[in-house]
């Protein structure tokens, strides 16, 4: 029994007070704000470059397709002259970069074309599917954090004890478990194999039937959260263990505060920076990255739309889906970067 709160680093307890009171020698307010503005400006510029690259890649998908779009539109028996006429009409004879900005203009006004199969505007399809993916992602994240945070806090408080070791071992397994295998096992356990208490497929909208909605998203969310929870626990545990070595924790202990109060009020917040970052990144990833899970549980979200578009060779749908997934991923990451800079003065100072 040595680690965690019981450890007593040989340090002057008064030193903890200054650390807890904030970083020493802060720059004057005006200069700090300017520096922060510079950081924001730099990040925004970076974001703009990456967004241009990402949108260009999404655009290029339809352009890289094998075959000549003009020839397809003109029909099978078209003469070369007719094909050339169609090409001019569609504007395909212009340089790629011109067509890209033309397309980008359409994107900005919400025009992504219509589905090749159903004729539905791509924007409309996206509007239906984004909330579904968003719900799954949010619920999965919340579940993962709810499982991971108490386990991590307790593991950091008593490292090497039963809870720590067993959650570590289970987490190691969970991290190696692909979604398509975990989902299958969950279906076997709860949706038709050993028991049938939950539906394996069939999404119910939240506003149609809240309880049915809950039931229909439990299995997909469980599939998504397990691996994340394992990673979160690991990350928070190690950050928390180093926080618990800090002098201000010793200070709190010497004031006689209860372990629970120290762990959750004093230690959790300074330990959770990297956790917040990772959770945010995963949020962006889950929005479109849950393709396998959405297909497996027939959830009508963005990921399933992308998969379906690939099967149907519905390239405008594919393009729209990938565009939204990639752009939201990039934007969420940038927002987290900024949030991080706003929250953690050290990042701000480094510039």
């Amino acid at each position, binding site marked *: 029994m*040595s*680690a*965690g709160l019981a*450890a007593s*680093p040989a340090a002057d307890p008064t030193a903890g007070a200054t650390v807890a009171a904030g970083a020493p020698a802060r720059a004057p307010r005006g200069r700090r704000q300017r520096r922060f503005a510079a950081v924001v400006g730099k990040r925004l510029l970076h974001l703009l*470059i*990456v967004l241009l*690259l*990402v949108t260009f*890649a999404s655009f290029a*998908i339809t352009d*890289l*397709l*094998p075959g000549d779009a003009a020839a397809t539109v003109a029909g099978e028996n078209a003469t070369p002259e007719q094909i050339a006429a169609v090409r001019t009409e569609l504007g395909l004879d212009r340089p790629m970069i011109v067509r890209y900005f033309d397309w980008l203009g359409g994107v900005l006004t919400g025009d992504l074309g219509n589905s090749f199969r159903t004729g539905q505007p791509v924007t409309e399809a996206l509007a239906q599917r984004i909330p579904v993916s968003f719900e799954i992602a949010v619920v999965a994240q919340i579940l993962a954090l709810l499982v991971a945070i108490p386990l991590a806090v307790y593991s*950091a408080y008593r*490292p*090497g004890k039963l809870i720590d070791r067993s959650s*570590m071992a289970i987490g*190691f*397994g969970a*991290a*190696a*478990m*692909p*979604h*398509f*295998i975990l989902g*299958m*096992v969950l*279906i*076997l356990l709860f949706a*038709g*194999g050993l028991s049938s208490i939950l539906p394996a497929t069939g999404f119910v909208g939240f506003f149609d039937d809240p309880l049915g909605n809950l039931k229909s998203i439990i299995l997909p969310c469980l599939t998504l959260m397990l691996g994340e929870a394992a990673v979160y626990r*690991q990350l928070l*545990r*190690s950050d928390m*263990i*180093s926080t*618990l*070595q800090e002098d201000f924790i010793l200070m709190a202990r010497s004031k006689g505060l209860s372990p629970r109060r120290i762990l959750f009020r004093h230690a959790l917040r300074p330990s959770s920076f990297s956790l917040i970052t990772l959770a945010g990144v995963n949020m962006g990833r889950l929005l*479109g*990255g849950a*393709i*396998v899970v959405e*297909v*497996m549980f027939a959830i009508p979200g963005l990921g399933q739309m*992308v*998969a379906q*578009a*690939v*099967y149907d*060779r519905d*390239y405008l749908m*594919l393009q729209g889906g*990938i565009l939204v*997934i*990639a752009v939201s*991923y*990039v934007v969420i*990451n940038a927002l987290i970067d900024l949030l991080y800079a706003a929250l953690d003065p050290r990042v701000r100072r480094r510039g």
Partner: protein
Amino acid sequence: MAEARETLEEPILTGNGGPTDLAAMEPDLLDVEPDQTVASGRRRRSFQFGWWLACGWLILVVGAALLAPILPLWEPGTPDYTNVAGGLSASHPLGGDAIGRDNLSRLIYGARASLLVGLSAVVLGAVIGGLLGIIAGYVGGKVERVLLTLTDATLAFPGLVLLIAAVAVFGASMTVIIVGLAVLSIPTFIRLARATTLVIVQREFVTAARAYGARPMRVMLREVVPNVVLPVAAYGFIMVGVFIVAEGSLSFLGLGIPPPTPSWGSMIAAGRTELLTHPQISLIPAAVMFVTVLSINYVGERTRKRFEVKDSNL
């Protein structure tokens, strides 16, 4: 001994605390807590055991995959109509799939495909990414900035989506999947190799080589590369597992290695229609894939720690 080295290094790196603090500071996944003196002897042996178990499994899988043509197996593509969704029997030890093909044989031939995808994508990504990373780290300046910007841009894409787009555009084939996975892994290899290079360039033997008048090319190849190989290889080892899963995800979506070539992913995906009636068709390849990825992670994590680069340099 890995443990011994780490306990020696930690106080130097952190500069505070005694052995009791170390137990708590050590963040890593599989670590032995040195303060638990009673249990530590037993635990060290059990670690060794687990490590050998994982290695043994990997050797078994690789060996079976290599020897598949000379092993006494059924043809992986030929159905045996007495074995349709068959259970475990003497002639078909792992039963048969939905159209009666032998599961054991498909599993072993599937290992060839899954391992081939994982290994060649990693080798491709590690060689290209590793060399670019060394150049970025050694040359610095504009080259480094351009490479890092490209790296950031590539990492901004969600991987599986990019892979699916590639398969949609170029069609599903082993080459497309291998190249796609390799491209996705290059940025991370660049970062790793660059970070390692930055550390190595500080070392005396590099200064000595430079003082000796060696050209940058020679310093990179003779002094830097040998020191970057190990961390890159250790990371690449773990990536093999990631890629096996990625191929499985693609197969699950019907976008993996096209039939008739069996792969673990396509076996799991194919058995899904029979999941509730004959779960073993999917579950056996799923278990094999899981255990393999788990073994790779376990062995890799252990090995990687020995050549760890501080994350802050990445």
